[in-house]
């Protein structure tokens, strides 16, 4: 099974990656703009330096060496601080290219650019050339381009390093925002989860954010359709019970009158066979109607129900139709029996357990019904039933081995009802503390019984 996709995780990753990408794009645009600005600024600096330096250099050279045309030996200007290095270097050159004067760190060979006023690039240098008024001397001021790159890189790094802080902060911020934003989704999810066969009330759509209201409306529509379908199923099960049982009752009663009136007549035996078939049909009809009602999801009650009075009615009813040689003992161990089960579903489940005990239990032992606060156990005498047979008893149309002729639906109906109510049907043989017997226990874990519809 593939792991469910986390919307929160997806939002954190995608929004963080998006934010970083946008940040990097903005940083690159800013870096490009910065590079242009730095070039303009540094070029301005070079030109200003050259313009200020040229007259000073010319005056100094004339004072010291005479006219530029008379002096041929290149002269290097020493540094005040030998350990320092020059940020900007220059060469003063004659029109023929000869170097008259150069700064300490300037190359001894002429820059490989023509003596044309303006900017030029040569190897690692950015050079600005300017000539004297008479064009008898030129000064070329140069700056190592690596300096500009370093400045640019420093600025770019200053833009980029906050990303290291941005990523976790962004992820945390997005996580908190998504969590807060999804709160209505979680509330909606809880609301939907609270709906089951016994609670199909509409959702409180007006309390939902605008974005979730279409979902709420759609779920309400679905709930309404489910409720209609369930009502139809329940009405069918209920009406068909009446419509089937009444003619069956009339037929059975008329047949039983006929059997009496045929007393001594050879056809009476045939009528008795028909009566047996009708009685089997009655049992099968009962079970199928119970199964239809259980399958219609009618078992779950929205609130815990006090079942002890109902239990007494069911037991009293069972005692009235009990064969003369059988006995039912009811042990009430608690002043109440509370469970989230519809009272009619409880009646169906109890009748099936008791009928099962009457049909399959040995007549030499009474049927014992033990009531607890959140459980009921029905025990009857029986040879030990193997675990394999026990496991199959809750399957539909699965019959036990003790008595032929059963429908094979009783325990399946009880199991269906118990699953719907979040309870459990436990079949045990032999009965705990005994060497034989059979026990069927309905129990509800309290107070957290959840529906398994």
């Amino acid at each position, binding site marked *: 099974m593939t792991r469910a996709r986390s919307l929160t995780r997806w939002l954190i990753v995608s929004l963080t990656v998006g934010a970083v990408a946008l940040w990097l794009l903005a940083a690159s645009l800013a870096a490009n703009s910065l590079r242009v600005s730095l070039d303009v600024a540094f070029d301005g600096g070079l030109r200003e330096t050259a313009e200020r330096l040229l007259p000073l250099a010319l005056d100094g050279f004339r004072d010291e060496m005479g006219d530029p045309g008379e002096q041929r030996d290149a002269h290097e200007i020493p540094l005040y601080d030998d350990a320092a290095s020059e940020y900007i270097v220059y060469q003063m050159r004659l029109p023929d290219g000869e170097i008259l004067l150069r700064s300490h760190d300037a190359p001894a060979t002429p820059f490989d650019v023509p003596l044309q006023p303006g900017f030029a690039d040569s190897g690692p240098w950015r050079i600005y050339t300017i000539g004297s008024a008479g064009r008898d001397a030129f000064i070329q001021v140069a700056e190592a381009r690596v300096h500009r790159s370093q400045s640019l890189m420093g600025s770019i790094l200053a833009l980029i390093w906050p990303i290291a802080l941005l990523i976790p902060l962004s992820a945390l911020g997005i996580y908190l925002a998504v969590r807060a934003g999804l709160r209505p989704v979680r509330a909606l999810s809880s609301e939907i989860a609270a709906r089951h066969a016994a609670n199909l009330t509409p959702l409180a759509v007006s309390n939902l954010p605008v974005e979730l209201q279409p979902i709420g409306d759609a779920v309400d529509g679905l709930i309404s359709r489910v409720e209609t379908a369930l009502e139809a199923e329940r009405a069918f099960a*209920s009406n068909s*019970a*009446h419509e*089937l*049982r*009444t*003619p*069956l*009752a*009339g*037929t*059975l*009663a*008329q047949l*039983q*009158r006929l059997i*009496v009136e045929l007393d001594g007549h050879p056809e009476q035996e045939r009528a008795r066979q028909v009566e047996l078939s*009708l009685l089997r049909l*009655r049992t099968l009809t*009962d079970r199928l109607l119970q199964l239809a009602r259980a399958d219609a999801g009618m078992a779950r009650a929205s609130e815990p129900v006090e079942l002890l*009075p*109902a239990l007494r*009615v*069911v037991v009293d*009813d069972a005692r*009235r*139709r009990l064969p003369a040689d059988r006995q039912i003992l009811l042990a009430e161990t608690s002043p109440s029996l509370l469970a989230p089960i519809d*009272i*009619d579903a*409880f*009646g*169906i489940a109890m009748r099936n357990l008791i009928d099962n005990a009457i049909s399959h239990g040995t007549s030499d032992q009474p049927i014992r019904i033990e009531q607890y606060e959140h459980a009921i156990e029905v025990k009857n005498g029986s040879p030990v039933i193997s675990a394999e047979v026990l496991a199959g008893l809750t399957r539909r149309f699965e019959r036990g081995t003790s008595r032929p002729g059963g429908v094979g639906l009783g325990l399946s109906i009880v199991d269906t009802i118990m699953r719907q109510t979040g309870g459990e049907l436990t079949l045990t043989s032999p009965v705990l503390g005994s060497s034989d017997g059979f026990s069927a226990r309905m129990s509800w874990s309290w107070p957290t019984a959840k529906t398994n519809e």
Partner: protein
Amino acid sequence: MRILLIEDDVALGGAVRDHIAAGGHAIDWMTRLDDAFAAHSTVSYDLILLDLNLPDGRGLDFLRSIRKESDMTPVIILTAMDQLSIRIDGLNAGADDYLVKPFDLSELTARIGAVARRYGGNPNPVITIGPLQIDQAQRSARLDGRVLDLTAREWTVLEKLAQHPGVLVSKAQLEDAIFAFGAEVESNAVEVYVSRLRKKIGNDLIQTVRGLGYRIADE
């Protein structure tokens, strides 16, 4: 006993009527609630068999109505609705028993007998009066241990008298217990059945109170 059957299904109603009549009881069968109200207002019944779904209303409304008038006639509900909640509603409304259709006629007979005995103040189905032993559950009577051969109507008269030993039972009450609405009743019918009974159980056990009725000995 005089029994009112309220059942709209013709097949079931007819069979129940015949079965109860064959048991020696008088039975009036109504298929509608308004007819049932009319019958109930004119005849004192010993038992009512009541269906819940009727063409002109709900059987439970009929039951609540007669209980509201402090009428304590025993009522057995006969219905196709087997839901426990409906059964509890019926019992809370004042029903004495509840039979889900389809039921065995023999079970109906047993329930009728049990309810009648409860109301008679003696839930024990066996009544012993001197040498006479009457088993209401088995619908049999023995005199000095010998099984008596009684017709259904003789049985009904004996049971009616034996349910309250020493208490006077009027001729009209005995007629009501034997004959349904519309039955041709001879003016001396009760005397005939009492006379036949005396021949079988002896003259001393049933006493005639001239002009008032009959009673069975208290011993």
